[in-house]
């Protein structure tokens, strides 16, 4: 592959779609403002001009984008006004992701994303090429990489690509995952805010009309139905969201990496080399706890990822009893353990007390704004229960190669960190803790281009020193 090549022309369409998607919000604003003004044609002119412009740039950038693999490098020429030559040397390429977006699917094509290590360095995206071309390109880019890493022959390439084991989400678990997705709280607040904005629709007259026309409807039932409606609607949306993003979720294991694929409309592929895995988290959301299930995330270092989703979903829904089996099959470095070090009994009341501090702020506020605000005092009971749960769940164990710790916010998280991947160990003591010889203990692992910190409250001070020694001794 020494000649420069162009992508499939569908790349231009894909880029156009991306421009539209990225500008959806300004577009909507423009639509609302534009169609309200007297001369509504202006909006359509602006829209047409914008679309035309994006279309032309799309075609131009497709025309000017050329790539080739030459002398251990992926070379790319691109750019309309500023011509850019991008050289990515093979041995710096960390991850090659092959994805199918909607546009790519229409034409039977794929998108190839090439990611290099470390923050700040540039990766490359080839928007649309045929599957066979993509595979050839991947093979080409991988070939010398294996030699670089000290593998003797190119033949080992074949071994590396072979799928050793694979796991697929069952439909039953997918539905369970969608059913118990905690996202609906977030969507509900968004929906609530949107309904709040629809003042022109929800006004006195309409409400009066509703109350008159429907028997048994008064202000109270109206509010209740409204709230129920919002909850049901947002729950439905979150249900669909989970179904769409985790349909056909697969984990495949090969010699050197895990490959995760998922998605109904937009296929996502994520490759995680084993030597980049830093930690694994098992998160049991509030709704999933009754089923003894949760989501498994993997933290990997050095990707160019958004801050928001630097943790990668490894399994969307798994019972806690199945985790050990999953670990053994896919990431044998990890194992589930029982928690040996727990907060001492003298920390119990600190745990009970802590969630209740929230009341110190909320109670006066609620009372101030609302005559019946004092009823909030009864929330002390669930808050105490919550504190007790936190106390019961907190724990940490340091093994030969693995640190496991468990803590609860609302969801219960069990984190598994490879000892050799620990970046920083912290201990924090406030004056009240100092009196009782308690400390908070924190372990930080790398995740994406930043870090992820796990914290356990109120462990015994000497126990913390011991843990610290255990963790650091082996890292050296």
């Amino acid at each position, binding site marked *: 592959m020494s000649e420069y090549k162009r992508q499939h022309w569908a790349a231009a369409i894909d880029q156009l779609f991306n421009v539209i998607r990225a500008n959806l919000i300004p577009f909507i604003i423009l639509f609302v403002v534009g169609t309200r003004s007297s001369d509504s044609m202006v909006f359509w002119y602006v829209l047409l001009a914008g679309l035309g412009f994006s279309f032309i740039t799309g075609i131009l950038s497709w025309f000017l984008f050329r790539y080739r693999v030459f002398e251990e490098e992926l070379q790319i020429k691109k750019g309309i006004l500023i011509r850019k030559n991008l050289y990515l040397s093979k041995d710096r390429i960390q991850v090659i992701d092959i994805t199918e977006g909607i546009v790519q699917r229409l034409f039977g094509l794929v998108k190839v994303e090439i990611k290099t290590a470390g923050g700040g360095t540039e990766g490359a995206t080839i928007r649309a090429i045929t599957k066979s071309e993509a595979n050839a390109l991947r093979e080409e880019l991988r070939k010398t990489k294996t030699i670089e890493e000290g593998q003797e022959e190119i033949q080992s390439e074949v071994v590396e690509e072979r799928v050793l084991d694979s796991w697929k989400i069952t439909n039953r678990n997918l539905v369970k995952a969608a059913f118990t997705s905690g996202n609906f709280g977030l969507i509900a607040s968004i929906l609530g805010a949107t309904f709040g904005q629809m003042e022109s629709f929800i006004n006195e007259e309409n409400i009066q009309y509703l109350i008159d026309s429907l028997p048994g409807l008064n202000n109270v039932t109206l509010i209740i139905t409204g709230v129920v409606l919002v909850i049901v609607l947002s729950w439905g949306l979150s249900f669909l969201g989970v179904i769409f993003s985790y349909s056909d979720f697969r984990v495949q294991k090969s010699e050197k990496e895990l490959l995760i694929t998922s998605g109904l409309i937009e296929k996502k592929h994520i490759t995680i080399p084993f030597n980049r895995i830093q930690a694994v988290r098992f998160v049991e959301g509030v709704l999933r706890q009754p089923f003894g299930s949760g989501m498994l995330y993997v933290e990997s270092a050095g990707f160019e990822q958004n801050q928001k989703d630097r943790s990668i979903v490894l399994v969307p829904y798994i019972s806690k009893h199945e985790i050990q089996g999953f670990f053994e099959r896919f990431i044998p470095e990890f194992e589930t353990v029982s928690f040996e070090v727990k907060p001492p009994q003298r920390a119990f009341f600190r745990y009970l007390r802590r969630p209740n501090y929230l009341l110190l702020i909320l109670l006066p506020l609620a009372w101030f704004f609302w005559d019946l605000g004092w009823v909030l005092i009864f929330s002390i009971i669930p808050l105490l229960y919550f504190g007790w749960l936190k106390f019961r769940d907190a724990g940490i164990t340091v093994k030969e190669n693995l640190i496991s710790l468990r803590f609860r916010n609302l969801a219960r998280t069990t984190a598994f960190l490879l000892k050799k991947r620990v970046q920083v160990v912290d201990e*924090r003591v406030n004056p009240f803790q100092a009196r009782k010889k308690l400390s908070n203990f924190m372990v930080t*692992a790398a995740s994406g281009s930043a870090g992820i910190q796990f914290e356990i409250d109120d462990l015994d001070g000497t126990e913390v020193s011991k843990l610290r020694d255990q963790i*650091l001794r082996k890292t*050296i």
Partner: protein
Amino acid sequence: MNGSPEKRIDPNAKKAWRITGLSFGLFWFVIPAGYFLIFGKAIEEFSVVIQAVLSLFAITAYIITGFLLPSLRWERWRYDLSENEIDLLRGFIIKKRTLIPINRVQHVDTSQGPVYRKFGLSSVKVSTAATTHEIPALNEEVAAEVRNRISQLVRLAKEDV
């Protein structure tokens, strides 16, 4: 916290921090000044009591940020280097102890602002793949020494593996 680190940072840190504290502390006076500017003209709404309380608050806060905090902060800062880890201890109300394994260090650099330069101070920044940590206000030479020592240790640790 047993086996705590021993080394202190440079005593000049107090002076440097006092200067920065005293200059940035001036912002506290924005509150009483703002109150005076907004309500000062309308006599009936202006309250001498509120003005006095706000001014007193600003003066106290100014003294704390300008004099008390720099000394306390210096008093409580400790660090240490060993061939295996970097050890940091700081905080006067909430104490925080951080241990960075040497072989996790990605890079070290020293930096110096205008105030630090005046007092011949320099701070050392240690970055890992996840976090960045700072040892503030070391004597320039000490800072350079610390930086070189860390990078030397890192090289040794990495060769070992």
